[in-house]
């Protein structure tokens, strides 16, 4: 690979959800749909992302901001390879790690130690590599003898700590973060912030989703504003954050105007 190649290249990315095949789908609704297939094709699709272009260079830390449902998390999932693009392409140079995975693979009936093995295997870390990492994971999670008790006996905080420790055990080339900065109690939060900063210095590129705009201006060297699945702005953090704040304020005013609470303000 060329050293100068970007860490992540996203071209014309579109991610479409099929609303007819959600988790509550039953055979009946599908059969019903076959019956009137010609009627309004494509009406039951939802584009979570549409025509998105993004390049992330090595060494960059990108903040993704935008209102809920803008497609920020979808973009992270697509970069991680979990969601397949419906259109466009994504090229990633290096090993990707998401910190989305806090405790996702946990089996409540197994002990913490068994869960480290299982979660590691799901993430593709096995055998000697995992054995070498385990002491560090135990040390960081700091849950003492509970490690040999079933995870169902853990408190939410303990579970989060173990999940965080596993997820951050390997140093990825490309780090994807989705609002994981507020995990556990005060002490662990400080510790996890430190660990994330450590990972950030080691990773070649970072993409993070956060609603903490101060965090974006402090840590990111670029920020991208998404709205309704589209890229609205891509630029310096201060600039993007300012634009986002402006748009949020404008929307609030508009909403207030149409709701009729400030009748005079909305007058032409």
């Amino acid at each position: 690979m060329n050293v100068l190649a970007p860490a992540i290249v996203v071209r014309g990315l579109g991610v479409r959800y099929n609303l007819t095949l959600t988790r509550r789908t039953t055979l009946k609704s599908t059969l019903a749909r076959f019956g009137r297939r010609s009627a309004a094709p494509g009406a039951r699709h939802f584009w979570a992302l549409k025509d998105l272009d993004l390049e992330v260079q090595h060494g960059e830390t990108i903040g993704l901001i935008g209102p809920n449902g803008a497609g920020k998390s979808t973009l992270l999932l697509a970069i991680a390879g979990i969601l397949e693009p419906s259109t466009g392409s994504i090229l990633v140079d290096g090993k990707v790690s998401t910190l989305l995975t806090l405790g996702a693979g946990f089996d409540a009936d197994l002990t913490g130690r068994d869960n480290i093995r299982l979660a590691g295997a799901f993430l593709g870390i096995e055998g000697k590599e995992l054995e070498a990492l385990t002491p560090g994971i135990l040390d960081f999670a700091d849950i003492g003898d509970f490690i040999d008790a079933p995870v169902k006996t853990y408190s939410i905080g303990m579970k989060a700590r173990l999940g965080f420790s596993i997820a951050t055990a390997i140093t990825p080339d490309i780090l994807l973060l989705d609002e994981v900065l507020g995990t556990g109690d005060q002490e662990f939060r400080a510790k996890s912030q430190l660990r994330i900063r450590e990972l950030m210095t080691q990773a070649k590129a970072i993409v993070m989703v956060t609603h903490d705009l101060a965090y974006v201006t402090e840590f990111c060297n670029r920020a991208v504003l998404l709205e309704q699945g589209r890229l609205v702005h891509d630029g310096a953090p201060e600039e993007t954050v300012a634009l986002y704040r402006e748009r949020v304020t404008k929307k609030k005013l508009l909403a207030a105007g149409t709701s009729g609470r400030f009748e005079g303000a909305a007058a032409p």
Partner: protein
Amino acid sequence: MKTSPREAVPAGPATARRRPLGALREGIRDIASRRRLIRYLVAADLKRTHTDTLVGRAWWILDPLIQMAIYWILFTLIFERQIPDFALFLFAAILPWKWMASTLGDASTSISSRVALVRQVQFPKLVLPAASVGAGITGFAFGLLALALFLVPYHERISPWLLALPLIAAVQAVFIFALAIGVSALNAFYRDVGNILGHTLRLWFYLSPGLYSLDALGPGPVRTILSLNPMASILDSYRRIIWGTEQVAHGVAPDFAALGIVLGVSLVLLALAIMGFKRVEPAFARIL
């Protein structure tokens, strides 16, 4: 939509999906490269099942015995069926049937019950039904212990053909694997599959020679149709090596030709199941 249509350029793993043979190769690679993960999942399953019950893993052995006892009571006391060593006759078929039924039940929820995992971690989803199959094989192995105990009072029926059991089990394992992959993917899309599965398996069992033998039916179109069922050949083979036939009161050779056909059909089904699974795999994260 205002946007101009773009050429879909699939990234990375999606490329092979377009070509069936590539998908097959990739599916086999998924399973081979994640052997350890599958093993951990099987171990997790074994640790979990029955740990909160009084007699624990003895249920692996008790379950088929109790089921057999129920059928035995029904058929000897109520229907007055006159088959020698009827308990062994039943057990030889119930044990492998239970293997298939419980594996398919497990497999049907193997993907749909792991929403968080599928939506947040990138891993080959084929390992999930594969783990169900692995756990099922272990359960069947425990069941063989029950069979060994059971054969003690019927020791005069034991013959060297009993050693052909792993061969029949191997054919059945391929068949089960193909179906397990299918139901795991289908149930991720349609939760009805779980409901339909129970009824389908029950009907299928009654249409398979579990409680009766096909020989008892006599020649005719019904028998011909029923013998097209792969499970008919499999159950019949188990019964022949364990119990024998109506004429011979000890284990005899299985029908190798029929088993060969079932193996061929199962391998084709397995290849198709892997190809189909790889095709729909990217959708799981979106629909769960």
